[in-house]
């Protein structure tokens, strides 16, 4: 279970050397949310609304400037996310994994898929040697619908959808409990998007994953998630069950998002 309690994060603005005081911009302001084990939680909002920052805070990539983030794993142990201890981070890494928005950027274009998959595993407690690593890489690759022959290829040899599969496989290498997916279908074609959503849904059931799923597309979030939070300017402005939100958006901003979704003209 992932819990964010009044979490804030600000970034320093690049100011001139002679500026009197450093100016800051708040990317996330006092966001509180709770993702239960096995739940799929969606975050929706425009770019710059703080979704990515929230996700990166949740996975410990950024340290919060205020509030607390905790994670209770399946064994019942409580972890404080964002703590600096190497051990704490190491433990957390096998529980929470993060998938980046654009696979073209998050996969090193010069590395073979095999190295990409194994690179991180080496430094976790799950490392049992190269042989074991390889067989795990293969298993991970197969679980996302790719095959052994893809191990020796490099990201530029793949289509966008396949690349995102590789990125998901990389996240699965450590057998995480929770997967944080930041706009992972936004860079993909509509047809491929459905494939990836299908795959995630399948993996979720198969592995009992908890998911944090971020998108700027209300249709995708309300389809895919159990609960959805709407972000605007770093704040969580509305939170509701996905079906509820799709049927009855309350907040004005949610309604704007709602209206912007391209709809096929109704038949007839």
């Amino acid at each position: 279970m992932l819990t964010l309690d009044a979490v804030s994060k600000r970034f320093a603005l690049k100011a001139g050397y002679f500026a009197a005081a450093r100016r800051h911009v708040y990317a996330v302001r006092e966001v509180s949310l709770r993702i239960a084990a096995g739940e799929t939680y969606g975050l929706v909002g425009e770019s710059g609304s703080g979704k990515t920052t929230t996700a990166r805070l949740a996975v410990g990539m950024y340290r919060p400037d205020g509030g607390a983030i905790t994670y209770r794993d399946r064994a019942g142990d409580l972890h404080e996310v964002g703590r600096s201890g190497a051990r704490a981070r190491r433990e957390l890494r096998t529980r929470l994994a993060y998938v980046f928005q654009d696979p073209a950027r998050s996969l090193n274009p010069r590395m073979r898929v095999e190295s990409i998959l194994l690179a991180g595993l080496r430094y976790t407690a799950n490392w049992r040697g190269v042989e074991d690593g390889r067989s795990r890489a293969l298993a991970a690759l197969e679980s996302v619908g790719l095959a052994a022959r893809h191990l020796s290829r490099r990201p530029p040899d793949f289509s966008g959808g396949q690349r995102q599969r590789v990125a998901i496989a990389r996240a699965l290498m450590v057998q995480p409990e929770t997967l944080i997916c930041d706009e992972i279908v936004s860079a993909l074609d509509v047809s491929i998007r459905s494939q990836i959503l299908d795959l995630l849904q399948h993996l979720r059931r198969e592995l009992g994953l908890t998911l944090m799923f971020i998108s700027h597309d209300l249709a995708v979030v309300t389809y895919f998630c159990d609960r959805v939070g709407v972000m605007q300017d770093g704040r969580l402005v509305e939170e509701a069950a996905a079906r509820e939100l799709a049927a009855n958006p309350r907040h004005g901003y949610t309604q704007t998002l709602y209206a912007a979704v391209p709809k096929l003209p109704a038949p007839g």
Partner: protein
Amino acid sequence: MRDADAGPLYDVTGLTVTFSTERGPLHAVRGVDLEIDAGTVVGLVGESGSGKSVTAQALLRLLPPHALVNVPRLLFRGEDVVTMRPAALQRLRGGRVGMIFQEPARSFDPIYSIERSLAETLHTHRPELDPEALHARSVALLEEVGIAEAERRLASFPHQFSGGMLQRVMIAHALAADPEVLIADEPTTALDVTVQAQVVDLLLRLRAARGLAILFISHDLALVGQIADRLVVMYGGLVMEQGPAAAVLHAPRHPYTRALLDAHLPLGVHYTEQPLHAIPGNVPDPLHPEPGCPFAPRCAVAEGRCTRAIPPLVAEPAHAPAARATSSVAAAAPHDPMPAAVTGIVHHRCLLPGTKASLAAAAAPGEAAC
């Protein structure tokens, strides 16, 4: 020019583009027919890699030298673009035909202010304008694309604009020379849905105000459906289906179009209620095109012969642009919601089950043509 006014702005037949690469010839476009009429919005839809952008670049001969372009007919207002002289070509590019691209940020030089880059564009196409006229024109253009406080924003630099704003500025650039056609290559793909909706609105307004023809390229059928009058569906470098937007969206004749429509996720559906209709598999590898229909490996209704040869396109007589909306089809296919509008070109062998029988009866000449 005289008879060109009656004909389409762009008239393309049999466009093929092959890139010579280290790994062999890459068949990007394998025979595309396209017509853009004055004042209409043509939507070019297909997954990435299906050849949309290459097609668009070929229209302006913007392809790099290692692209082998073969096109028996490529006319702009009746003028042959293939044999066009450099000066005329220059007038075409960014002049009579404007272009906007997916990532506006990349199209701007970060060290030029908006005013400077806009003035430069204006100057190349209208050298007679003096600095004051250039400034006035720049302000007018920014206002036209819906940028508030245009006067002040002219002094800004590209990085001071959001993606949506920058896309507006790019549209202003494209409009600078009063083009007849605007080619918009995935103009909203990098933008948020909310901003996307605004940009689409802007394009529609411009079309109405200026009588602009637009070639709108996107992978999102629903989005294109909102803006286009005609739809051209591409896959594997080939046109799969084309016709009036409403017809293609409501009564797709081609399994690929149908699959794209099914893959669309309507708002309000939930995973607990309805599975997704993903299109299985991947887009074909343009380095090794299959002999038959490129969609065959993913097609739900593929037959043995689909993999043998590329099925010829069939213009159904009842749907040909000249003989639009005959009622015979409506009578033959009463279950079809909008049969009257079904026009265009499809592979006849792909006609979806259900419509197949009725159309075979109604459109026997098409059958014979194959």
